């Protein structure tokens, strides 16, 4: 009885599943590991270095901004590290070392912390970082100058850029002409491109891990990829090629599924993923840019509050309120 005053009193429930934000982010990092390793294998040690620079920059910016804004340190939730890895994987491997730092500044300081930190950003930080770099430094980001895997200093247009430039008028021709973009090579990542987007095998492995661990639901990746592939197929492009080339898998698995910037409910997720898929397909088919995944995701991110409002499920036993006088 003497200790009765020392009892903890708290609101129910008194059990917790044990999941934490840091553990979820840790799972995402683990799921990205195959892609990181493959970027090193395909593009050399330089790409690992770039990833390290990007992650470090994100962590430093996160720490400093939180310090200046007099908010609690949030490095431990690992979200800044995830942003760092994703930003780097969205860059070509032969960009200058300082480029990811600028991207990290935009992602962490402008997009994330200025809007209130984790959970408050309305667009995907890593993607806005990438788009900013694409617009500001086209010479590094969009030129047909990207490194070709496992070769030294040879550059080549990415497969999608080749189509947009009219260099490769038909997919069938391209497959027969170019030895290094046969179906298996493309699945394994033996093609020019951003350092994390090329190895589809590694990305799917990571995606599978996230689905099995129930970190993400497979709805968004499947609907997103299905929509893009379906539409481009209808308009005469090779579906396999459209799935493998560009950043579709990286975007659909790791970027479009970002918790903060995608709808919560199933119906909303489907609407959002179809939107992402349609915009990507439209940009690929008729756009001025070769690739549209990042633009598509960011555009749909902005629409999420509206999608969410229109797709809120009806609560249990919900009955429509009768209008006045209509009894």
């Amino acid at each position, binding site marked *: 009885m003497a200790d009765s005053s020392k*009892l903890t009193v708290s609101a*129910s429930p008194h059990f917790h599943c044990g999941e934490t934000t840091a553990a*979820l982010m840790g799972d995402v990092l683990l799921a990205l590991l195959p892609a990181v390793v493959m970027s090193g294998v395909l593009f050399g040690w330089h790409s690992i270095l770039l990833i390290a620079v990007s992650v470090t920059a994100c962590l430093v910016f996160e720490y400093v901004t939180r310090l200046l804004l007099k908010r609690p340190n949030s490095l431990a939730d690992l979200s800044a590290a995830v942003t760092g890895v994703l930003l780097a994987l969205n860059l070509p491997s032969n960009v200058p070392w300082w480029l990811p730092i600028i991207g990290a500044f935009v992602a962490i300081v402008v997009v994330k912390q200025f809007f209130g930190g984790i959970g408050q950003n309305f667009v995907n930080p890593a993607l806005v970082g990438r788009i900013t770099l694409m617009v500001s430094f086209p010479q590094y980001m969009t030129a047909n100058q990207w490194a070709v895997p496992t070769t030294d200093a040879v550059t080549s247009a990415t497969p999608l850029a080749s189509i947009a430039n009219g260099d490769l008028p038909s997919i069938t021709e391209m497959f027969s002409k170019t030895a290094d973009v046969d179906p298996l090579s493309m699945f394994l990542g033996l093609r020019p491109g951003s350092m994390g987007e090329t190895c589809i095998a590694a990305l799917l492995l990571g995606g599978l891990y996230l689905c099995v661990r129930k970190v993400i639901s497979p709805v968004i990746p499947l609907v997103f990829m299905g929509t893009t592939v379906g539409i481009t197929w209808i308009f005469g492009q090779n579906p396999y090629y459209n799935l493998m080339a560009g950043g579709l898998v990286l975007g659909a698995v790791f970027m479009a599924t970002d918790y903060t910037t995608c709808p919560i409910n199933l119906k909303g997720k489907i609407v959002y993923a179809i939107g992402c898929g349609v915009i990507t397909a439209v940009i690929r088919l008729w756009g001025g840019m070769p690739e549209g995944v990042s633009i598509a995701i960011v555009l749909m991110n902005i629409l999420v509050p509206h999608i969410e409002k229109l797709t809120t499920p009806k*609560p*249990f036993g919900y009955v429509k309120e009768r209008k006045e006088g209509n009894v």
Partner: protein
Amino acid sequence: MAKPLPSSVLCKPVCRARGGVHPPHNKFTAQSATQTLPLPAAVTIPLAQHIGAPCLPVVSVGQQVFVGTLLADRTDALCAPIHSSVSGTVKAIGPMICAGGRLADGVTIETDGNQTPDPDLQPFPVSSAEDLVAAARACGLVGLGGAGFPTHIKLRPSPEQPIDTILINAAECEPHITSDDRACLEDTPLIVRGMHTLLAALQPKQVIVGIENNKPKAIEALVREIEGNPDAENWLRVMPLPSHYPHGAEKILVQVATGRRVPAGKIPSFVGCSVLNVSSLAVLQNFIETGMPLTHRRITVDGPAVINPQNLLAPIGTAIQELLDFVGVHEPPAKVLSGGPMMGSALLNTAMPVVKQTNAVLAFDKKNDLSDRHQAPCIRCGRCATACPMSLMPTLIERYAKINDIENLRRVGVGVCMECGSCAYSCPAHRPLVQYMRLAKEIERKGRT
């Protein structure tokens, strides 16, 4: 099991429940037969043990009372009468903190050790629905599953919607608690006789016991008992439910058993169902047969801090500390719950008494009291919305509650929240979502007037 259970008594749920979570079952006391707690020297019986107004005392200090003597009642408001759980002398009547933190009078009785039943107690034969309602009231019965809603109100026949299905709630989906499980095993004949009484008085099409499939022994005992009664076999059913929290919630039980959805703001009788807790039924049938009202409770005493977890039969009004002393605790507990870990309330102190709704007392040590949890910002992962059995979006409701947005709280239907705790249980950011849901409901309720 000796032989396969007959399929004529067993029946299957008609649909699946949405959402929910899978907390560890922790039914450590499932095998422990109920022990009777040694009679305490004194009990303090609160006069507010139900949803509704506190009762007014009908005894005075110094008066001799017996087991089952009426202590308090009132006729002008919603309440369930209170009876003495011991024989002895009334020592004091004064204000005390009751369950849920509200202040009401309590009657302190010094026990004489004889536990003499009140000589005036008479069996209460029931032959009609009105009799049943009167019996439930006279018995002082409330929902023993934890809600504390007066049973006689629930059983009152509604003129618009005849009751065609009576559900006996033995789901017991909360972790740790096994008191209903033990009731099914130890009072099987009483429960089945109670089902007969309900059948005769209310004349429903069927009486179904809903019970989670993690209690195979209780299921078997009930099926065997019903089986031995061929004339009622067509009406009485046992429905094993998936062990999935919160299947014991009234609206969820009605949904999985009948496919009917209780509309927001309505009670199950609106869709022709009546839900009664299995322990409540046992107490009611006992009252009908012997006249002994609700005076004792079967309580699961368990938790990481408890040395010898078990089920105890304790007089209402016993201090929680007496239960903990009987089972032993490793160290002074850091948190003591009345009820289960998902919906139970943390007690202010262990001098608080056992009340009618106390189905469990759980003691947690420092390591398990969750006081070290670090609240982080919401990352909109959506786990709360996926877990919500009522299809609400707790994260959104938290935001609306913080800015007092009455209109949006009403639009998203916050009123249907039953505070089951599935959202907060699954939140990786450890947000106190149930607390926000309570706040949101309060804001919405005030905004309505």
